[in-house]
């Protein structure tokens, strides 16, 4: 399901109408994204702004906090079925996860697990727009991201956990591990998805290793399309809320996969054995070694 495949049968006029009728997910804030995905009228926020569960650590360091700590937890229905959306606000502190924002996600996942264990499945959807752990909250952030990992693994036995990386922040650090743990991962072409961000690699290994300002290079390595073509994501869709909603609904209908991506350890060993770390490897070269479908 790539954007080009979806458009090939259309005339120019149809393509234009389709483009104009799109509702960009990238341009929405976290709360709007959750509202756009849930069925009209079903959106109910848990621990919203007026509960004032903000970071106690940021003001101590002279940083203005946000009333929801940059995470929106919303219950409601997606295509008529119970769902919980956990949306990270990329505009607040780079979507970083601190003690409070991370605990909100871990808590929502735990509640979904409890419902799953009781035989009342709730579809969990993670909207990931995050640089990873919030450095100002250090170990508390690390601890809670580990908790999120553990909760996803426990929850995905009962119900498929769906992750979405939209853009433009991308998904990095400990939360890129969370994205990999999801049963299904949806990406937009604008997404970036990697453990260490380009700026970090450039800073640590030098500009000869990676030029973080070279957008074409960065997206050819870790962009949404590359991640889809090499099987690290399950769906690549255009930037449209309705496409995203339909894609999530269809992936959820496939149920819990027989084998999760992170259980395919032998496949990844086979991949790593094919890579020669002494020579250069670019995006197109990697696609040849590891085309979509090389796993499973």
């Amino acid at each position, binding site marked *: 399901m790539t954007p080009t495949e979806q458009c090939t049968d259309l005339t120019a006029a149809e393509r234009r109408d389709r483009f104009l009728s799109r509702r960009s997910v990238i341009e929405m804030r976290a709360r709007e994204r959750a509202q756009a995905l849930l069925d009209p009228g079903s959106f109910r926020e848990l621990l919203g702004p007026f509960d004032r569960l903000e970071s106690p650590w940021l003001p101590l360091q002279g940083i203005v906090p*946000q009333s929801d700590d940059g995470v929106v937890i919303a219950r409601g229905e997606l295509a008529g079925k119970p769902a919980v959306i956990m949306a990270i606000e990329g505009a607040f502190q780079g979507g970083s996860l601190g003690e409070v924002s991370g605990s909100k996600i871990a808590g929502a996942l735990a509640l979904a697990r409890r419902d799953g264990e009781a035989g009342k499945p709730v579809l969990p959807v993670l909207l990931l727009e995050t640089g990873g752990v919030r450095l100002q909250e250090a170990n508390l952030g690390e601890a809670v991201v580990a908790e999120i990992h553990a909760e996803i693994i426990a929850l995905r036995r009962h119900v498929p956990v769906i992750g979405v990386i939209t853009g433009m922040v991308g998904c990095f650090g400990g939360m890129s591990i969370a994205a990999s743990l999801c049963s299904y991962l949806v990406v937009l072409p604008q997404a970036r998805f990697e453990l260490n961000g380009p700026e970090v690699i450039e800073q640590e290994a030098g500009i000869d290793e990676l030029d973080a300002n070279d957008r074409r290079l960065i997206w050819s390595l870790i962009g949404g399309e590359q991640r889809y073509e090499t099987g690290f994501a399950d769906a690549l869709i255009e930037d449209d809320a309705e496409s995203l909603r339909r894609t999530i609904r269809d992936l959820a209908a496939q149920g819990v996969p027989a084998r999760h991506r992170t259980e395919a350890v032998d496949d990844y060993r086979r991949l790593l054995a094919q890579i020669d770390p002494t020579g250069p490897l670019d995006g197109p070269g990697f696609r040849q070694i590891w085309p979509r479908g090389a796993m499973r």
Partner: protein
Amino acid sequence: METLNFEYEAKQPLTRRAHVGVVGSGDLEVLIEPPDKPAANVRVRTSVDGYAQVWKAVLDRFFSHFEHAARVEINDFGATPGMVTLRLEQAGELVKP
């Protein structure tokens, strides 16, 4: 970070609440809700220090036509006065009966 407090007289009660904006670069978040006391109280937390006079001017103007008693919290991340005014008007419109 600087915290500023303002108080304005109010003539009408408020029954609804609203939240707009995000604490992102050049933007701010505004929370407005019915207060405990019959006045409009504003708490501003801003990432840019030393602009108390500008905040006062922007808020004076808003509360010259917004006459509801309200508890208002503003978390600001370097928004311009124009942006602050737009967010205040947006929140004010959402809580109007």
